[in-house]
Structures are given as structure tokens and as C-alpha cells.
């Protein structure tokens, strides 16, 4: 193996030397201030530093949706987002969605939307972001929104059912 530039890490070191900076962001309504390295992803900071383990690294490179969180109202992949760029942001994780007693959680339990459960938080977050912006989402729209979330256990058919149920509940149904 060549010595230089042979790995992504080596490349990153050449391209962007490691720096450190303070960031201040809000997670589930709580303000956090911490120093982060320039290479740290938001997923790493949430998971390893803040103990919010619901943001899962399944693929670790933006391919599966398991690390999804909502940032300023939009679902994002926290493994593809650098923490250093999150200064001033408002972040909502699956734990926050559960704490707020969002009906999605109970609908997910009732519809058995999880098997091994590793990818489940990512689905819940994506679905929550969808319902926030489209409370009347149709089954097709739900499928389209969740199509980027991968589940190896194949729980797929249950998710639209749960999201429709939660949507109904949110509207007082």
C-alpha cells in the first residue's frame, strides 16, 4: 500500500487539517456547548459524546438513513454532517420524539415495525419529519419518504401502516 493518500483518512488529513472549534446547538430542546474536532460527524457527537444512541451507524456513509435526525425541520443524515457545521442549529433526535410522546412511537410498537430494531429510530425520525411538513401524507408519499431507509430484516410493509395511524391520531382521530 502506498504511504500517502491511500485511505480516506489520509486524504482528509491532506485536504483539511484537523482543527477544533466550539459549537453551540440545541438537541431535543436542551442547549449543548462543546468543543468538536473538524472531522467529527454529528452522528459521532450525538451518539458517543451526548449518549443519544438512537442515531445509529448502520452504513456510516449516507446510504441507509439509520442515523437520521431532524435539523431545523429537515431530516438529515447525521453521519454525513460535520458537527462543526452545526453551530446554532436546532436538532431533534428519536429520543426527543419519544420524550414528546409523539404518536408515531406507539404506532410503531403496535404495528411491530421493528425486528432487530437497529434501523428503527431512523425510520421514526424520517416519518416524523414527513408528518411535520405533510400531516396528510398518503401511503404513496410515506413510501417515497421512507424509501431511503434501509431495513435488513425487511420490516418495510409495516411502516406505512404505522405512519398513517400516527397521522390520524395527530389529527384527533
Amino acid at each position, binding site marked *: 500500500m502506498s504511504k500517502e493518500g491511500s485511505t480516506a483518512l489520509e486524504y482528509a488529513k491532506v485536504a483539511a487539517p484537523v482543527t477544533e472549534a466550539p459549537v453551540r446547538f440545541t438537541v431535543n430542546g436542551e442547549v449543548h456547548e462543546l468543543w468538536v474536532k473538524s472531522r467529527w460527524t454529528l452522528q459521532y457527537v450525538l451518539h458517543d459524546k451526548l449518549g443519544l444512541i438512537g442515531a445509529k451507524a448502520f452504513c456510516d*456513509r449516507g446510504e441507509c438513513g439509520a442515523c437520521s435526525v431532524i435539523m431545523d425541520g429537515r431530516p438529515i443524515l447525521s453521519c454525513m454532517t460535520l458537527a462543526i457545521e452545526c453551530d446554532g442549529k436546532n436538532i431533534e433526535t*428519536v429520543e426527543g420524539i419519544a420524550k414528546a410522546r409523539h404518536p408515531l412511537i406507539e404506532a*410503531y410498537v*403496535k404495528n*411491530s415495525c421493528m425486528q*432487530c*430494531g*437497529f434501523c428503527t429510530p431512523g425510520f*421514526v425520525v424520517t416519518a416524523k419529519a414527513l408528518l411535520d411538513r405533510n400531516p396528510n401524507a398518503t401511503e404513496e408519499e410515506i413510501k417515497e419518504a421512507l424509501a431511503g431507509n434501509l431495513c435488513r430484516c*425487511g420490516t418495510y410493509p409495516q411502516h406505512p401502516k404505522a405512519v398513517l395511524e400516527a397521522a390520524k391520531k395527530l389529527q384527533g382521530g
Partner: protein
Amino acid sequence: MANNEMSKILEPDEKSKALELQDNLRADKYPLKEYNNIGKRGVRRIDGYEKASGYAEYTIDVQLPGMLHMRFFTSPYPHAEIKSMDTSKAEALPGVRAVLRYDDPELPRLANLGGHFDSEAPVLPKVAHFQGEEVGAVVAADSEEIAEEALTLIDVEWEERPFILDPEEALQPGAPLVNPEEFPDGNLEKKTVEEHGDMEKGFAEADKVIEFKCRRTHNTWIGPERPCGVFRWNGEYPEVWVKQQRPYVAKRVVASWFGGIPMNKIQIHCPYQGASFGGWSQLEWNMGGHYCAAVVAKRVGRPVKWKFNRREDFYGGEMDEGVYYFEVGAKNDGTITAVRAKSVMANQQYPFGPITHFADNTRIPNLYGERLQARVSKGPTTAVRCEQNPNTLPFSLVFGRVAAELGLDPIEVALKNDGCEGEDMAWLDGYKAAMGFPVRDSLRECVEKGKAAIDWDNKWHASGMKKLPNGNMHGMAFTWTHEWDDSAGSSEMAIRIERNDGTASILSCRADCGLNAETAYCQVAADELGMRIEDVFYRQQNDPGFFTMSPDSSTNMSVNGFAIRNAARILKRKILEAATAPKAMSQRGSYAPAFPGMKPEDLDIKDSVIYVKANPSNRMTLAEFVGPSGPAGPMAVYEFGEGAERTAFTPPLFAHGWQVQMGSYKEHHRPRPRLCRQAYFIEIEVDTETGDVEVKNVVTVNDVGKVVNWEGCEGQQYGGAYMGIGRALSEEVIHDPMTGVMLNGNLLNYKFATMLDIESIDTELVETGLGYGPYGVIGIGEDVGTVTPGLLIPAIHNATGKWVDELPATPERVLRALGRA
């Protein structure tokens, strides 16, 4: 009657019944008369809230104070030997706490590093036999980032060796050796032959002989949680967090290290597991990370977490990669007279040949299967949902071909050949009757349900005959097999009634891989004990020292179900016996029974309430019965003389149950005919311009004998369908033929099914009671994901009239079959 006298009478009764049930050929003789929770829809999942809310902790999430992060060095070559290694720069990197090398004197030459069976393997190999293999060195550092950086600072002088990726090429005369260490005589690891009947006669009786070939390429498990683990020494005692389907086996492996560690000094945790479908947990080296972590943790005095990255989880794969050749004789009416098959397999771990399923569940009298197990320069393979892939694929291909070539409905061909070990259905019916099973025709029942669900009679057509208005060709296919859950193994579980509130806790450690099995065991315990489902709980993550089967050896409920049922029955007797005996005894005498003057058989338990059968208003809840433990501990109220009020403290209510059950592998035991059948239907469209296959509808019909947990069964059905469709159409690990380097070790380029890849799935469950497990159950977890891939080749043929001869049936391969590529 005193407690211990009663237990002499009652307890052995249940035990002797349990022992009697170990006659593995018979139907369950002691099912329940009434089911309240077993088979009931809508039982709340025990793990549901934790998993949906993100609070569920997996092994990879575990963080301990002072924990180091460990990463492995991996081979850039598919076959190469380390001649020398310089780790000095890595060791000098700030934050690196230890570098363990292959030549470290602390490492034994070989150690037991797990696997389906105990294995002996080098902890840090010096020779790599596939690109990406963990070899040579491992680095532990304050952060994963530093460990990664240190790996790039390791200098290795390699001696590259020749490699081979294709199993047939590996068996060519003069082919270079791909693993001279283990197989110095050649790349043929093993040849096996299975033979039944008279092949010459079988082919002579045939009206038509069909010959064909098919290839299945390398595919793998993709565990959402990557291989990982945490090892900590609490002084002399190991504490281990495993990502392992079989935590007890992991404990036994750890016990074999460092000259031997007593089992009772090892603490094992098995947090939630991001599934690996057999996969990783079954491979020989899977405890190698723990071994290195144990050595480093001892040296450094800190806990160590090791973990693979996503690419490294593509360590090996399912054991169905190979080339399959067939010669099939059939009569014009669809009766198959002979099957001759040969498979040339790549790194296949277990000796499952291409005709096993024909023997297991057909009346075909003449069978010959030859299997060549070749070594190639790829990772090891194992049972990845599951070891039957090399059998079910040939089965589906042969039945699909025979029906299509003879112009018959594939369902008729299946029904005509259904049977067992060369015997017909009349023989099988006789067996069912003799062994106490209901005489039901499982395949016919499955087929009827499935045909109705997919509208087979109206939609099925001859091959290549139906062009849709959108220009696509419409295709349908059917396949079938038996359920191969061997209902075999040993398992022990226990139940304890808690003080204060009388709730029940199930005790045993097993891996939760998402099957909802823990809820199912609670359903069994609740019904057996007469308790409400919400009063029974099972958290499977900590080890009480029992050997409980995990998703393991193709068996779950059909053995563990007996273990938990036996425990529950013994415990129920204990409760009723305690309720009629003096409640407690101490130095100051004994207390009146909760139900004075009654015998245990006068009482029963329902909805967590003990009541008198002849007078149900005479009742006491279990919580009242066990009573409070007392603010200062049990007996305190009485012993310290705080008045005459006597504590309601009962004897400990705990029972341990177990089951030892023989399986049906013919080589080792009496053959046990397979009784439950499974039927699979598919409807597809093929775009003949692009080669794209769209899956419109999958109908999976599974005879599980008896449903315990509906949602769990259905989860295995649609989940298996998605895995099967991925395997059939897109799942393939690709290696560069020039360098032997794996090219697609990520989720973007290794494509498994997404939500949009199946338009509709219909799950149908059949309950014939024909399973060998408790209440007539048999498994479901492996069947669907394993059998459905074989549907696609006959389905594409039904659509286009052409045979695809390689799986996955990618658009390129479909176009090639159509003569367009």
C-alpha cells in the same frame, strides 16, 4: 401435606412427562386445552418501545469509563504472507495504548475462537486468504480515529501469492493452492455423494430428460450492527459484551482461554443485537476480536471495545455460491423419476448437497447428488438464513423446469411428487396417524390458500404468453418445500415469581435478533401459569448461567418452548402446592395455608388469580398470595416482633425447566419425516428492453403447525420475502478478477431490497399441528428468505420463455437470457 412431600409427588410427574416428550418422533402429547395468549393477535412487543424510541442499547453502543477502541489491520491482497512488519510508527502515535502483533509471545499459536463448532485458529493470522481479512496486527487507542490513523502507519513486507476466485477454476488440474496451510494437497476440501435408488432405472422410466446448469454468486448477511464486542477484566474476572447469536457458546469459548477460566467467573452480556442471520456468529474466527481485546485489556488495565467497519462486515457470506448441474427425468404427467445433480461450491462450510430436499420431502425414488467443496480466495461462508440455500435453490429450479418443459401447472407437479424419503403421501399419512399427528395434507392446504391469495387459477399462464398493456411481460411462479426447523437441541430456562407483586420473570440469556421470541416465550409462560400476559416478563440480556438456545441451529421455539413450558408447569404446581400448604415456617411455628383444607388439584390459576375450581369466588391474586417482602426484608415483621401480624412470605417460587431433543439429521439419528410444507407464489413483470424485473406480488404461505406469536411469524414472512427478493435480483458481492479485491463492500453498491422493491406481500399462515415442537409448532424464520430466491428463475421464464442461468437475475443477465446482451 408438607411442601416437600407434595413436591415429591408433583414435580417428578411433570418431569417424567417432559422426558417422555423427548421421543422425538411423536406429536406433543400434552398440549393445553385452551389458549389465551398463545396465538392471540396484538400482544404488545416487549422490545417495541425501547427499539422505536432509540433507547435500545446494542453491543456496539456500549461505552465504559476509560474504554479503549480497537481496530484490526486488514490484508490488501487476496492471498499473501506477512514477511515482516514494522509497527514502531504506529506505537509512537500519541493516544495509541497497545499494538498487538501476530508474533507477540502472548498469543498462542492457536486458540478456540468460536464458530458453529469449537474451532482452533490463529488469533492474528500471518497469512491472508482473502482480501480484507483481519491479519497481522491490531491497534488499541484512546479513540477509534487514532486507532485508524495508527493502522495506516504500519509497514508490512508482503509476499503475494496466487489467488483464485472461481470454484471450478480452483479445481482445475495444476491450479495454484489457495490455502496451502490448511489444504496442502489441493483446493478440493471435500467431496460428498448422496445416493438413493437406481438412477439408470429412473432415467429409463422417464418420458423426458432435462439437463441444465445454474450459477449462484457470492452473497452475504449485512448485519445492521457490525461485528463488535467489549471486554473488561474486573480484576481477575472477565466481563464481556458480545455481538453473538449464541452468548452461551461465547462464554464457553472465553472459558477455554488463558489456561482455562471457570465458567462461574465469566460474566456475559448480550444486549440487543443488530441481526446477522446466523452469519457472523457461526464463523470460526468470530471470537478473535474478543481474544485480542482480552489480551490488550489485561495489559493496559482498561476495557477495550473492538469493532469492524461496514466493509469489514462483508467478511464472508452465505454458503450457496457455486455452479449447479442437473439432469432430471420426468414422466409426461409430471412424476419425477430421477434427479442427478452436481454442485461445485465455493468455501461451503457445511456438507449440504444439491439433492437433500428431494429426499426430505418428495417421493422421487432415484436421486444422486455430488458435491465438490472447493476453496477459493474469498471469505469463509456459513449458514446465512440459511444453510439450506444450496438445497432449496436446486429444488425450486428442478420443479420449475419440469413444469415448464412439460407444459404443466407447477402446483400439480408439486402435489404429484410430494412425499418423504421416496415414500408417497399414503405412507406419510400412516406415519402421521401412528405418531399422534392430525392426518392433514399440509402442502394441499398451503396451496389452496396461496392460490386464492394470488388468484392463480385466473392469472397463471403458459410461458411467454402474456404481454401487458405497458409492454412488460407478465410472469408467475410457484415453489414449495418443507420447513426444516430440526426441533433439535438442548435448552434450559427458568421462571421466578417476584415478591411483592407476584409477577413472573423468565430467566435465561439469549440473543434478541428481532424475532419477537421473547414476547412469544412470555405468551407460553402466561398461558401455562394462568397469568396475564402483562404479568410475565423476559429480558434476555444477562446470563443466569443456563444454556438457552438462541436463534441457533435452525431452532428456537420448538425446543425453547418445551423448556419454558416445562418450567411453567413445574412452577404452577409449586404455586398451587404452596397455596394449600402452611404458608411459611419459622422458628416460631408455621402459618395457615392460603387455601386451608384444599389440595393443589382443587385450585387453578387464571388471570394471575388463584381460585377454587368448585367455588371461583374463593380467590386470591398471586400478588396477595406472595405478599410483601417487608420493608426491612422478608420475615422482618414477624421476627422482630412487631405485633402478631404475620408476614405473608411464601417459600421461593422458582422453577427450572429444560428440554433435550434429538433432531432429524439422518446420518446421526432416526429419520424424522418432515411434515409441514411451505408454498410460495410470485407475480412479476419483466421489461424486455431493460431486463428489469418488477416484483408485483409475493404470497408466502407457511404451515407453522401452530402460531404462538402472529406478528412474529408474519415478520419472518414479509421480512424473508424482502431478503429473498434481494438475493434473487441484486445481492452479489463482486470481486475484481484481476486483483481479487472486493469491489462493493458498502450498502450503495451491494444492493439489498428497499421498501419499494416489492409492491405487495400477502402473508398466510397455516396451522396443521404437524410440527414436532410444543403444541405442534415448527419454525418459520429461515424458510422464506431461503426459498423465495428460487422463485425468480421460473417466474422470469414464465414471463419471457427464457431461462436465466445465474442468480442474482440482474438486468444484464436477464437481457443475456433474452439474447439482447
